[in-house]
């Protein structure tokens, strides 16, 4: 015999204004199985919760329904209150009479009647609830950080410093990311490498960090606390355990004119190369696209070990037993981790997407990253600003802001956020290096929110004499070895034609290619621009919808270095909080199989998005296989219910949302008898106590059909 307690919340005015809460409580007292019903102004408040706790003892309640807000909001609150009173928390349910009722209705009578219906449905559900026990699973005390830019480096260091093991996976041959390419950083103009490289070295030397470069995440399975990640370690053709990074190989390599990725194509590298002198690990890899031996092997269709071409790097290697290893191959390694930080970063909008500014066509139209390399003391021009086309010094520079950003036509409706600051920095650096030169900036708005940021831009304009022009550039063309810009200055309302030596484009930040595929492996959502989505934009900014997976840096959206470092620290603290525990309680809302009914059609196995369903062999006492059935792994199941929908004979049920519970809810919904004047609206719906079309339940008539007008009503709500 059920003794259900019903607690109707006013939520101040939120519910109370539209729903007659005392009337709802009064109606609840007449519902079968309800032993106690009250209403109160704020059920979630301390007195409200005390009211629930006292009622459980006083009325010996076997179940609770709190009619208030969404369970997303306060289900944990009320379930904890139930647990404090000694009632199994899963015997507490919520009827949402706020979002589903008072907030969307104006008519008090209708809203009150609907609130009673919503409540009756949940009372019927609770009558079929059963006590459930949380599933306790152990946690693997190790974190995986994907991406070795400043975000990944900071997250890895913070987690490792707290005493947890970290595996840092980086796609490139060195960690460092985009920050390692930058010259100086705003707003203090300190050298990027000077502040980054100590952290890179710290990563390499940290006893708790295992660094995997030239590596990518291939597959992810498991769940929070117990992920199993397959990492592809790409062939480097250099033995990291033997190589000392002496440089003999790359000095001998005959292929010397490959555009350097690190220098954004402005410098050159060899086929066996270290991306930049401060690389971590500071050991080379062989670029198979350009290596003569690899090319020869590809042409002849033979294994690279059988080719005899070149091999100068191997010959030059002074290490006994040689560090060059042409027999190297991709390896798949499976690692167990408890938490994952995604820090895959960004790239800039490819030149092909901006034909109007001649990017990629005119050599002297460069991207912001290319300018960073030109301005960097370690760059291809040793820090002198020279034209890539003829190497002549630049006398007049133009910088164009918002190239692609804030332009839905380019697929980047968002602001890239960092450009306003770095274009001020570029113009400023240029003026510092060339006191006689002129720098012009075409901008839409100046967005310099941040500590010392606006001051920095003012300094560029007022102290360094940068010419800021508010307006867009319509097109760029070459004339007599110079670049001509057509644009406008909207503040004076004039057309502008400017002849310059070099143009810098502040191209939009876009997500790394392939990040969507990674997000799908991880179960992380992404928006239409491809940025990974946080669990809540304000209150859960580093978490994702996938428990145990956290975000750091620009994979989530454009941001600058200070923000990235702060967020990486935030993600790290979430990981530390998780890994500091020995076990994790998981919701017992999981699927279970009725072995008597299962036909092993395998639909559930194929449809499970987390591969939580496997096969169980039923054997007799002699060990003879009788038949196979599906079996749910309680640790893996996320309770999504997809298998329940796929199971034709209904051999799978979801604890907490059982067939019997849902059926009771549907039955309660179909019972319109005590709502006066309520007639079926003609929209056909099924349910044992409901109607099929056109008639009220009382008449039991099934003889008319729904009208098209009724269907229209359904469409328009």
């Amino acid at each position, binding site marked *: 015999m059920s003794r259900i307690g019903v607690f109707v919340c006013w939520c101040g005015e939120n519910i109370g204004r539209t729903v007659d809460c005392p009337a709802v409580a009064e109606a609840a007292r007449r519902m079968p199985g309800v032993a106690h019903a009250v209403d109160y102004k704020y059920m979630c408040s301390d007195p409200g919760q005390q009211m629930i706790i006292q009622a459980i003892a006083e009325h010996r309640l076997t179940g609770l329904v709190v009619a208030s807000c969404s369970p997303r909001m306060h289900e944990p609150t009320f379930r904890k209150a139930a647990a404090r009173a000694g009632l199994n928390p899963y015997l507490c349910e919520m009827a949402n009479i706020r979002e589903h009722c008072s907030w969307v209705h104006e008519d008090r009578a209708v809203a009150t009647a609907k609130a009673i219906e919503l409540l009756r449905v949940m009372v019927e559900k609770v009558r079929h609830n059963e006590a459930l026990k949380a599933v306790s699973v152990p946690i693997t005390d190790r974190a995986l950080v994907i991406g070795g830019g400043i975000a990944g480096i900071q997250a890895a260091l913070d987690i490792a410093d707290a005493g947890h093991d970290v595996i840092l996976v980086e796609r490139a041959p060195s960690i460092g990311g985009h920050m390692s390419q930058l010259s100086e950083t705003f707003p203090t103009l300190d050298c990027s490498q000077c502040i980054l490289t100590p952290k890179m070295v710290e990563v390499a030397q940290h006893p708790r960090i295992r660094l995997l470069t030239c590596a990518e995440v291939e597959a992810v399975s498991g769940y929070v606390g117990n992920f199993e990640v397959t990492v592809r370690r790409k062939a480097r053709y250099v033995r990291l355990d033997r190589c000392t990074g002496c440089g003999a190989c790359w000095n001998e390599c005959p292929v010397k004119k490959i555009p350097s990725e690190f220098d954004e194509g402005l410098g050159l590298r060899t086929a066996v190369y270290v991306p930049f002198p401060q690389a971590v690990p500071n050991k080379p890899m062989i670029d198979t696209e350009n290596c003569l031996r690899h090319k020869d092997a590809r042409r002849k269709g033979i294994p690279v070990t059988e080719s005899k071409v070149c091999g100068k790097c191997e010959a030059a290697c002074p290490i006994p037993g040689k560090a060059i290893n042409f027999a190297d191959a991709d390896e798949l390694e499976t690692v167990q981790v408890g938490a994952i930080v995604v820090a895959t970063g960004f790239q800039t909008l490819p030149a092909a997407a901006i034909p109007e500014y001649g990017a990629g066509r005119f050599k002297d139209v460069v991207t912001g990253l290319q300018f960073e390399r030109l301005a960097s003391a370690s760059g291809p021009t040793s820090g002198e600003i020279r034209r890539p086309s003829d190497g002549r010094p630049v006398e007049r520079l133009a910088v164009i802001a918002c190239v692609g950003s804030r332009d839905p036509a380019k697929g980047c409706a968002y602001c890239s956020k960092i450009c306003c600051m770095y274009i001020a920095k570029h113009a400023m650096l240029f003026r510092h290096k060339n006191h006689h030169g002129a720098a012009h900036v075409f901008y839409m708005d100046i967005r310099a929110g941040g500590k010392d940021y606006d001051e920095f831009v003012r300094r560029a304009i007022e102290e360094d004499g940068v010419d800021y022009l508010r307006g867009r550039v319509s097109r760029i063309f070459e004339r007599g070895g110079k670049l001509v810009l057509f644009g406008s200055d909207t503040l004076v309302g004039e057309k502008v034609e400017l002849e310059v030596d070099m143009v810098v484009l502040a191209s939009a930040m876009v997500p790394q290619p392939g990040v969507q595929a990674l997000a*799908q*492996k991880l179960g992380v*959502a992404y928006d239409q621009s491809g940025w990974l989505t946080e669990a809540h934009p304000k209150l859960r900014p580093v978490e994702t919808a996938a428990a145990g997976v956290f975000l750091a840096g620009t994979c989530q959206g454009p941001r600058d270095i200070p923000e990235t470092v702060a967020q990486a620290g935030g993600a790290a603290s979430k990981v530390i909080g998780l890994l500091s525990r020995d076990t994790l309680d998981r919701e017992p809302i999981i699927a279970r199989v009725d072995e*008597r*009914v299962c*036909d*092993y*059609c*395998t*639909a*559930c196995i*194929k*449809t*499970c*998005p987390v591969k939580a369903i496997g096969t169980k062999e039923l054997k007799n006492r002699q060990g003879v296989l009788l038949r*196979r059935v599906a079996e749910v792994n309680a640790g893996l199941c996320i309770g999504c219910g*997809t298998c329940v929908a*796929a199971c*034709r*004979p*209904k*051999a799978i049920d979801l604890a907490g949302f059982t*067939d*019997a519970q849902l*059926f*009771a809810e549907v039955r309660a919904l179909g019972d319109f008898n005590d709502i006066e004047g309520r007639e079926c609206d003609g929209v*056909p719906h*099924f349910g*044992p106590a409901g109607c*099929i*079309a056109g008639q009220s339940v009382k008449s039991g008539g*099934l003889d008319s*059909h*729904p*009208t*098209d007008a009724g*269907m229209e009503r359904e469409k328009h709500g």
Partner: protein
Amino acid sequence: MPAEGRQLEKLRHLARHALESGAVSLVIGFAEGTVPGRAAPLFCTAPADADRLIFDGYCTLNLANYLTRPEVRAHQTVALVARHAVAKAVVGLVQESQVDPTRVRLIAIHCPDLDGLQQDVAWTVADGLQTLDEFLPTAAHLHDQELTPERFAAVAQVESKSSHDRWDHFAREFDKCIKCYACRNVCPLCYCERCIADKNQPQWIDTSSTQRGNFAWNIVRAFHLAGRCIDCGACERACPMDLPLMELNRKMKKVVAERFGYVAGYDPKADLPLVTFKKDDPEEFIK
């Protein structure tokens, strides 16, 4: 001897030899029915049984249906007299791990689709006992004929009605249903030990032959066969009340072909479109 007679001799010889050689311990085929114009299933366990085998246009039952019966499962290897629809059903059963393909042999009959009852059909027997893998290439060319507009003439007619008329149409047709479950019992893919219609705690499908119960049963059955139905028409032929069940099944087949590019019954290794989770699913809700 006329051509059909020679084919019949060949059919009986294949069955007899399969049993004599021990290649199979059971051959399922057809014998003369008890009334004219009907054929009855025949279970041959002794070589002499093969002499009673027949084949004609009345042999419309889908014999793959018997593969999931415990008595048949008890046999190590079974041969089926299989026209194309029977082989397609075997493909479906293999996909859903109900049948081990290494334990099934086909005595393949090549003949036109048996949509209605007709005695005279031209048919031939393939040479030798075939495994499913050996049979499939010989029927691959039929895949493209599955979606010809003629097959969907009845579907198109229902589609052309207004929602109001469609409701009337199905209300009228389902009203005839007597809940005998013959459709389920002859369907080779309705193999569930406990059908959802027999589940009574809770009872989603009303067992009474009221309009609600009839709608629930016939629509749920069509949904359960969506993307699985191999279009053999056995249910519609078995229905004593002449419900146009294939209108529903073919509509489902059409939608699945349009949305998933999938036709059931051709590839035992294919993923079933409606129950296979894919990370690159075009629908956003699943990600």
